[in-house]
């Protein structure tokens, strides 16, 4: 299972490279920046792992690549316009991703910041809130982009509302799944499996080296 997901991730990343190259060769640059950016973002977990020894759960890595891949492929092949609901699927994907990353960060904060303690029900509620707020922030971004540059990112009220609805759904699912996950795995264990401690040591090491140089 682990190997399969990794292989699929690599294939999707290769597809993003292909999209970028094809765009440059055929002089059709609309989706090249998005493809390149998505590719870079999809590489972040590997970079974190190599340089900081910070390990995200591999399902999460896969989810990151898949969300970015669907976004890029949907844009290039016009699936965003052709398939009704494509927009909402990618929205739900990316907001569940945001929710999951938020979850990881909040659990880490819970463990490392002495003055913060977040019990599980609160954690779930907070993730739902956080995801919805990020969805709202995203829509505000699209709206201001439309107003300032005259682009056409928002299709209308129904579309905006459905986007938010799907953001909310994704938040609910991840929030509840996350809280459920922590029933069996203690926050301490979960954070340990991310190897944040090693990452901290690494960062401290890097900062120490910088200081020596100066």
């Amino acid at each position, binding site marked *: 299972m682990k190997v399969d997901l990794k292989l699929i991730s690599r294939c999707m990343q290769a597809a993003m490279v292909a999209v970028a190259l094809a765009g440059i060769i055929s002089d059709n640059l609309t989706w090249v920046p998005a493809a390149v950016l998505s590719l870079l973002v999809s590489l972040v977990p590997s970079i974190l792992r190599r340089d900081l020894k910070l390990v995200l759960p591999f399902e999460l890595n896969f989810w990151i690549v898949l969300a970015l891949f669907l976004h890029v492929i949907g844009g290039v092949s016009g699936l965003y316009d052709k398939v009704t609901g494509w927009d909402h699927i990618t929205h739900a994907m990316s907001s569940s991703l945001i929710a999951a990353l938020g979850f990881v960060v909040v659990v880490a904060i819970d463990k490392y910041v002495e003055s913060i303690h977040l019990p599980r029900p609160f954690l779930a509620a907070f993730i739902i809130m956080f995801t*919805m707020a990020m969805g*709202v922030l995203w829509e505000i971004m699209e*709206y201001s982009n439309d107003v300032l540059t005259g682009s056409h990112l*928002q299709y209308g*009220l129904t579309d*905006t509302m459905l986007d938010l609805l799907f953001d909310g759904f994704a938040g609910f699912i991840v929030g509840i799944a996350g809280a459920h996950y922590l029933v069996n795995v203690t926050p301490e264990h979960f954070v340990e499996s991310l190897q944040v401690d090693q990452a901290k040591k690494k960062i401290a090491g890097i900062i120490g080296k910088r200081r020596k140089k100066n």
Partner: protein
Amino acid sequence: MTGGRLRKSPFEGRTPEQIIEAEISWISSLVLFFSTVYMVLKMDVLWVTFGIAAISLYLLPILRLRDPFRALPWEMTLLLTAPMLLHVSEGSRALMENVAWWDNFASLAFAFSLSTLGFLLTVELQLYTDVKMNRPFAVFFVVMFTMAVSGFWDVGQYIGDILYDTNRLGDNSRVMKNLVWSLVGGIIMGFVYALYIKAMSEKRRRMLGFIHLWEVRK
């Protein structure tokens, strides 16, 4: 209950200004209560939810500490009540039609009251549950809470519009402006509350007694 005779009257030993402050707070809460009842009669589910949430957060410290003077500061109660009054009153509707920026003003008032709810949540969660937050996290919580609730609010209104075949939400740009104001209002109030607690006099803070999470630590 230890019997009314043994307990001294809650008014004993209060300065006149304390009594006036508490009275303004109680009156505002009554306004909140009656607007909520009015919303129940009009079957306005969203506003009823809002009213009940606000009233519960208002009553919780009073009931827990058995002291009517532990009412919220009057200015916070007014902030909570304002958007509901704006929503209820006919005068507001006339202004909405005639004054161009009234809609934005109402949105901002709503954002202020949502962030006040968020602020109260941070305080009361800290007091009555295991939740522990520090100040930066609490500011972040207030901002996130304001935006998230406006988001859910608009979705709720949208669903209501579809179910009852009404059009209370308006067009996309109106909704988006509303959300922009909720972002602005949330960020403003997140920091305003941090400053507010800092600026509040020691005496008053001790009297209100329950805002310790946001208190200035020396």
